[in-house]
């Protein structure tokens, strides 16, 4: 059906239009299954060979009251035949399953963009609940968009009549009807989604599976055969130009977890992940708890402190101790991290950052824990800090975290964020057999052993598994004598040990790659320095300005402590240094501190990733000054 009988037109496959890239946002109530819809669409898009980036954006409430604006869940996907590095600035298409989803998202939609709404949900009550004074579908307020109202609710209920489900369960298939419709528009196969639904519900709830599949097919058939307005076309998008190989989609949560498993295998260790549930970091606990066959032990501790302490205990016992959390949880762990620094025990701390301070906005992204990572402990307590810049990159960074923690007997903080954790992107799956092993050599030789005798190059102390005969020794948080490890309050010894702890971490700069320029020349008018998930939008923004002929470069930091040896000298070659961050300028102050260079901050703390245009504007503004 259509709201406008005159525009009714049947579309033939031949009328598909070819486009390079599209941004689609699905939005609805938190109970509408929006994340599932988006996830399925992302998967079939990936299987179609296009590049993509997703942005799941959901409320902190599990099931907020139906129809309210704070219960709106959204999933944005940018996909195309070219290189996709962000989830897209302004969506071309919005699918809104109720008035609240419309009012929350409409401002961000491109002018002239397609807005598909479930007209069946636009009851007077829902319209009022969303905060509209009149029905936006009728009052002309949506003039600048192409609005396509469909009674998805009714059509879904009709479609699911083939299955034995009640009205409530039937209506919950709305998301699959929508997926069917959008799948037709972008020429997506339904089979992978049908297979997914049958796997998910098939055995236990066969009628629910049947209803979902029926809704999916009905949405598809509606678009294919039924009436669509003349300007709503089907599209084709060419596959992206990927390097040959095996691909999959991966989220930061998955890539981090698998990277830790890979790192542990390369080090020859078993994993003990000790964590306490916290949004948005719990995913790592969930993924790893299913990998027991890979010698992964997971421990859901009683609190954040117990989690990090158990992880340190596990490392002391000879496993790879890991703890994962988000800002508020990391804050609780700081004393124990200091102990791991003092006793020089390997530890991986994954911080999936979220908007703060305090509880803040638990489901929204931010990069505001850089100070916490660098400085958030009592006394002089240097630590290794690494940052992943994308979902796929998390795999490599996790392996590097394990390498450095075990080689240097030190805690390593791995910074991720909500965006990276949840976003999916295609990933050229690496061949695990090609990864370079870095097997840990536990000390077993009693001759000449002392707990704090050091490797001359790395300054690392020996790692001894309790149970090793002849090497019994005690470690602890009290300051210890160099070499012997005996408790010491000696003044000169404390200075010496503090220096050693500092130099050990600083010396890691000799063991990490020199900083490279991501895009552009190694000198010029301006360099944009990023870390973490700002990678995508910075990369695109710098690319666009370079296309305009501007001498802009992009540097992305993976190593934040220690910084690469050549970074200061490299940055000094640029006239201006712009540092976009989802915080109030934390990396910027670090760079100023280390290199006495006049960095300029571009700050955004809205809980949402940078748009490309925001960074472009920032670069232009910086160039003009």
């Amino acid at each position, binding site marked *: 059906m259509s709201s406008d009988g005159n525009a009714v037109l049947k579309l033939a496959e031949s009328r598909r239009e070819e486009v390079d890239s599209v941004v689609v946002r699905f939005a609805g109530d938190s109970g509408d299954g929006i994340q599932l819809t988006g996830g399925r669409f992302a998967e079939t898009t*990936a299987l179609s060979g296009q590049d993509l980036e997703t942005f799941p954006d959901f409320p902190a409430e599990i099931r907020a009251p139906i129809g309210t604006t704070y219960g709106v869940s959204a999933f944005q996907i940018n996909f195309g035949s070219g290189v996709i590095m962000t989830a897209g600035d302004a969506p071309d298409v919005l699918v809104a399953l109720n008035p609240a989803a419309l009012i929350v998202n409409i401002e961000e939609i491109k002018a002239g963009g397609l807005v598909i709404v479930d007209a069946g949900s636009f009851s007077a009550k829902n319209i009022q609940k969303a905060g509209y004074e009149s029905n936006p579908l009728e009052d002309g307020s949506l003039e600048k968009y192409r609005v396509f109202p469909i009674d998805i609710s009714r059509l879904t209920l009709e479609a699911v009549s083939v299955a034995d489900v009640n009205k409530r369960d039937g209506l919950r298939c709305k998301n699959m009807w929508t997926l069917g419709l959008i799948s037709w528009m972008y020429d997506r196969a339904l089979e992978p989604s049908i297979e997914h639904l049958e796997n998910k519900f098939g055995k236990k709830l066969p009628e629910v599976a049947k209803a979902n599949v029926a809704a999916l097919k009905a949405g598809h058939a509606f678009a294919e055969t039924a009436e669509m307005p003349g300007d709503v076309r089907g599209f084709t998008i060419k596959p992206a130009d990927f390097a040959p*190989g095996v691909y999959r989609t991966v989220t930061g949560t998955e890539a981090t977890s698998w990277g830790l498993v890979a790192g542990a295998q390369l080090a020859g260790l078993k994993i003990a992940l000790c964590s306490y549930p916290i949004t948005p970091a719990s995913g790592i606990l969930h993924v790893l708890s299913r990998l*027991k066959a890979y010698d992964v032990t997971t421990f859901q501790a009683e609190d954040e402190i117990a989690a990090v302490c*158990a992880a340190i205990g596990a490392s002391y*016992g000879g*496993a790879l101790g890991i703890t994962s959390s988000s800002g508020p949880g990391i804050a609780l762990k700081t004393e124990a991290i200091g102990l791991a620094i003092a006793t020089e025990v390997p530890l991986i701390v994954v911080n999936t950052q979220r908007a703060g301070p305090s509880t803040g906005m638990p489901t929204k992204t931010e990069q505001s824990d850089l100070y916490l990572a660098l400085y958030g402990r009592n006394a002089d307590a240097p630590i290794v800090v690494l940052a992943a810049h994308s979902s796929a990159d998390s795999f490599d960074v996790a392996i590097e975290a394990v390498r450095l923690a075990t080689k240097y007997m030190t805690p390593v903080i791995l910074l991720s964020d909500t965006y990276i954790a949840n976003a999916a992107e295609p990933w050229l799956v690496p061949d695990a057999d090609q990864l370079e092993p870095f097997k840990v050599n536990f000390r077993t030789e009693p001759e000449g052993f002392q707990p704090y005798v050091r490797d001359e190059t790395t300054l690392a102390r020996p790692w001894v598994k309790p149970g090793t005969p002849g090497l019994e020794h*005690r470690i602890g948080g009290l300051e210890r004598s160099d070499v012997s490890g005996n408790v010491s309050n000696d003044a000169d010894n404390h200075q010496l040990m503090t220096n050693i702890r500092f130099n050990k971490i600083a010396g890691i700069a000799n063991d990490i790659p020199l900083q490279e320029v991501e895009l552009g020349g190694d000198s010029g008018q301006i360099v944009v320095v990023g870390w973490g998930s700002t990678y995508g939008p910075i990369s695109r923004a710098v690319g666009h300005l370079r296309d305009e002929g501007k001498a802009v470069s992009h540097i992305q930091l993976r190593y934040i402590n220690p910084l690469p040896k050549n970074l200061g000298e490299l940055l000094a070659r640029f006239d201006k240094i712009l540092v976009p961050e989802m915080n109030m300028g934390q990396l910027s102050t670090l760079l100023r501190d280390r290199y006495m260079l006049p960095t300029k901050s571009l700050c955004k703390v809205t809980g949402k990733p940078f748009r490309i245009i925001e960074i472009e504007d920032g670069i232009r503004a910086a160039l003009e000054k």
Partner: protein
Amino acid sequence: MNDIIATTDLTPKDFTSDQEVRWCPGCGDYAIVKSVRKALAEIGTATENVVFISGIGCAARFPYYMATYGFHTIHGRAPAFATGVKLANPELDVWVVGGDGDMLSIGGNHTLHVLRRNVDLNILLFNNEIYGLTKGQYSPTSREGTLSPSTPMGSVDHPVSATSFALGAGARFVARSVDTDQKHMPLVLKRAHEHKGASFVEIFQNCIVYNDATFADFTERATAADTQLHVEHGQPLIFGKERNKGIRVNHDILDLEVVTVGKNGVTLDDVLVHDQTNRTLAGWLARMETPNFPVAIGVLYCNPSESYETGVSRQIEDAKQKSPSQDLNSLLKSGHTWTVEPH
């Protein structure tokens, strides 16, 4: 308890480190470390398989004085570190040492959870009812009205009973001993070691500087026979110099009472027989206090069930049986993948 077999003849000296002991002269901790070394020598676990984990406080200096593996950690968290050690290597013989402030105040949460999880650890709580290392503030086990630097008018909060807490947390082994009782303590320590799971031992420890003689009401040698009840599984709950006082249930008030055998028609048959698997009885015994009751000493409760790390290891073994491959490539390629062919 663990499966490591004793291989050599060990003496207490083998468990004595070269570090000078720095507790105050006359501290009850000296007697405890002596008993622990003696018990370990008798148990016979090789020194390299023994690990002592502690938090912060006077008691927490303990690992430095043992010639085993040791980790002096942070305040209150020793049970969590010890849990991690057992996850890494379930075969190790891990002992946790802490005071009443460490394990019942700042670390109360971890004590609760390590007990309910039943991690195979020997947990020794040195209870001296005071904060020693911070110079004498009242602790969570201090009696009401305790005068201390932070409570100059006397403390107003109610103390926690360590053993009642442990039983409430679901501990499967709860015992008590007294620092100076060098005969009794090694026996209790060996029982704790034998028990597979979390073994909780409260040791009444005298702080000679800040809380001297706080337990004198039941530890004075002259009166101990009348103020302590040494419980033994299968034996009647009898105490007293004359061995004629007993504990029985008063059904009218549903509580224990002290009776004298041979008086008012009370016979030995009326006296309760200790059943270490009876949690209700253990709860009753834990609550007995002077002056109305003797203080119960010995193994109040011992009723083993599967220990935490055993269950964890079992799940890992099961998972490995189901998917024996640990091949990383198969993990990375699990789920939907697609192949881009060379152009």
